[in-house]
């Protein structure tokens, strides 16, 4: 049992905190919400120079060779400032997918370029015809035609599709939704013919897309993992991505608590700091309780997964809990900080809007509780 981060992780956190505080202010985030691209290439390159793109990528592929806990530290810091841009898509959905696939050819092709900041990825998974999250409710068809596959169907909520060089597409090669069997993952070049994007407009101004595939042709070399058995690979990718998403939320929640408790110490009404009112104290205490639980659960799951333990139940528990916790924290953060924090220019709405995006991303609490229930033997 050891809750210490390593010296390297502490340095990583400090570097990330300093860099992001200097380069990613709240007004920058608001600006990027309105920006069509949603991030700045020069910031991306700076991050790349710091080695962040390669953080989790093995050294043999020009990466830093870090582990999932290193990545958790990074996402905590990014969540803390609501960093815009395709880092999550490229690393947590993209690089991790390729690493999990254990396909040396694809690794050589993609990982070094990702490491160098030259390549952006994303994943196309959910679909408009399925109105609730379920990873196996996939209807987009990939039909074998000679040495290639033809992909047809529509994907929803694809993050950063407008800047991705390649899209990892979850397709059905056999069976009917919601069968777990019959899914396959393909890496699709974003410039492929037949790919069409429509930007969605979400409450957080993040960049999500509807992506339609009209007979998009991919070679059989684009298959990631095994044909028809993609769900196994998908599950292991999603578990790691879930922890990264939870870490993002944790960073945001921690920042909200700091804002709220800071405000409670300074803001005076009735002749004293509002933080001396028990109601405000208890709101702040409730935030801390929810955050501490989230924090150690995230670290535990990251540790379990980094040990190669599937941790199906713990990961689902983590996403469900942290989603709910972040929601509660932003509610209380607003309640403590009053009308001022309801203004769009205040930092607070950045977090309360993203809390809902993160809640729905990679499965909401409802979905993950169904996983926990099954794991309980129900």
């Amino acid at each position, binding site marked *: 049992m050891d809750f210490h981060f390593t010296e390297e992780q502490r340095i990583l956190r400090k570097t990330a905190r300093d860099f992001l505080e200097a380069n990613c202010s709240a007004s920058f985030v608001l600006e990027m919400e309105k920006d069509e691209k949603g991030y700045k290439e020069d910031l991306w390159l700076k991050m790349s120079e710091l080695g962040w793109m390669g953080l989790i990528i093995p050294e043999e592929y020009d990466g830093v060779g870090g582990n999932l806990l290193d990545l958790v530290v990074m996402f905590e810091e990014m969540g803390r400032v609501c960093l815009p841009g395709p880092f999550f898509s490229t690393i947590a959905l993209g690089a991790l997918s390729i690493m999990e696939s254990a396909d040396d050819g694809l690794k050589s092709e993609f990982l070094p370029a990702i490491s160098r900041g030259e390549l952006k990825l994303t994943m196309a998974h*959910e679909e*408009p015809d*399925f*109105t*609730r*999250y*379920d990873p196996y*409710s996939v209807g987009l068809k990939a039909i074998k035609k000679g040495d290639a596959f033809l992909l047809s169907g529509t994907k*929803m*909520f694809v993050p950063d599709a407008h800047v991705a060089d390649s899209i990892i597409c979850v397709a059905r090669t056999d069976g009917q*939704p*919601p069968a777990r069997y019959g899914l396959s993952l393909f890496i699709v070049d974003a410039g492929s013919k037949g790919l069409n994007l*429509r*930007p*969605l*407009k*979400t*409450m*957080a101004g993040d960049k999500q897309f*509807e992506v339609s595939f009209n007979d998009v042709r991919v070679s059989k070399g684009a298959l990631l993992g095994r044909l028809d058995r993609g769900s196994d690979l998908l599950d292991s990718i999603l578990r790691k991505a879930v922890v990264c998403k939870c870490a993002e939320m944790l960073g945001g929640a921690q920042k909200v608590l700091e804002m709220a408790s800071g405000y409670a110490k300074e803001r*005076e*009404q*009735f*002749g*004293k700091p*509002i933080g001396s*009112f*028990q*109601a*405000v104290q208890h709101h702040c205490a409730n935030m801390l309780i929810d955050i501490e639980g989230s924090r150690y659960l995230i670290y535990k799951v990251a540790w379990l997964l980094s040990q190669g333990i599937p941790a199906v139940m713990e990961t689902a528990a983590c996403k469900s809990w942290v989603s709910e916790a972040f*929601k509660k924290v932003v*509610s209380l953060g*607003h*309640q403590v900080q*009053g*009308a001022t924090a*309801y*203004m*769009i*220019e*205040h930092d*607070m*709405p950045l977090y*309360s*809007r993203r809390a*809902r*995006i993160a*809640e*729905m*991303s990679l499965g*909401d*609490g*409802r979905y993950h509780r169904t996983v926990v229930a099954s794991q309980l033997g129900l």
Partner: protein
Amino acid sequence: MDFGYSREEEEYRERLCRFLDENLTEEIARQNWEDRGVGSEGREFSRKLAAYGFLGMSWPKEYGGKGLSPTYEFILLDELGKRWGCHVPLDVGYTMVGPTILRRGSEALKSEFLPRIIEGEIEFCLGYTEPNSGSDLASMQMKAVEEGDYFIVNGQKTFNTECHYSEYHWLAARTDQSRGAPKYKGISLFIVDMDSPGITIRPLWTMSGERTNEVYYDNVKVPRHRMVGEKNMGFYYMMEAIGSERNQVFIPMRLYSLLQELVQYARDTHHNGRPLAEDPLVRDRLAQAAIELEVARVLADHSRWLESNHMPLSYEPEITKIFTSEMEQRLVDTGMQLLGAFGLLMEDSPRVPMRGRLAWYYLHSFMTTIGAGTSEIGRSVIAQRGLGLPRSY
């Protein structure tokens, strides 16, 4: 015990419903509910509402009212609310300022303002909150110094929401600057022309897209006869009005349309071939929301009944406010659980369900438990007034 309405009241409701079905659009409803500023359609609707005799039912005849029971006003608010959460378009004047003018204003103020309010012609904006005076409103610092027939007003207000389209500012300012005077005994109320020289308005935009304002007063001259009631009694007037204001603002039926839209969504939306409405979890949560709406309605009914019968309002409207506002937050969360990621989409997005109303409601919902008094202050008021517990601060 009688939870029914009289035949006259029911007839009024029917007439009103016909009118609203013809004249009220979602756009008009939203102008007010979302504080987007009441535009020409809203102004026209307001005048029409008045012209058809739906405004002023409970106001005295001498100012253009009909002298009937406030119950009619609540029927109006309920039927408006059922339609996209609409409110009286010029609601600050109609539901908040007007009643205080009626209670405390001079005959001249009554004659000047009340008929125009009832005709749906003018709007006011509240001028209470200051940067350092939120929950502790009585600590306000805006100064009004008497000089001959005028008060010279200086200072700053914030979160004054309707200022950019209202004709008048309903301003609270400190008129007793002497040291040692209890802070709540030195405040007076004024009606200020918004186009008075020296007033500057700066917009503040909320996270859900409404506009509110900072208002700066720089040696603004306000005629003495525009002071409402007695000097230094303003805080008492604000407090005596608060119960009735809550009754007029926190209308449970304004949540009815959101609930109905969610029910409809659950019926119409399928996942893997089955309507969401069949899922026991969905059913349980939507049923809970409907139950809470029933509760909110009887709480409001009780508090309204006190008002309609001129009985003192104490903690009761505070309960209605807290329950209704917190219920709204729970309802929004229920909606989010139902819509999943689709609930994140804003109104002009592809694939958006329910015209993006749910996303807007979410963004808006943070304000409901803060605006017009926080739930925290409210609960202490309930404990102290409703149960006689000692003061906590």
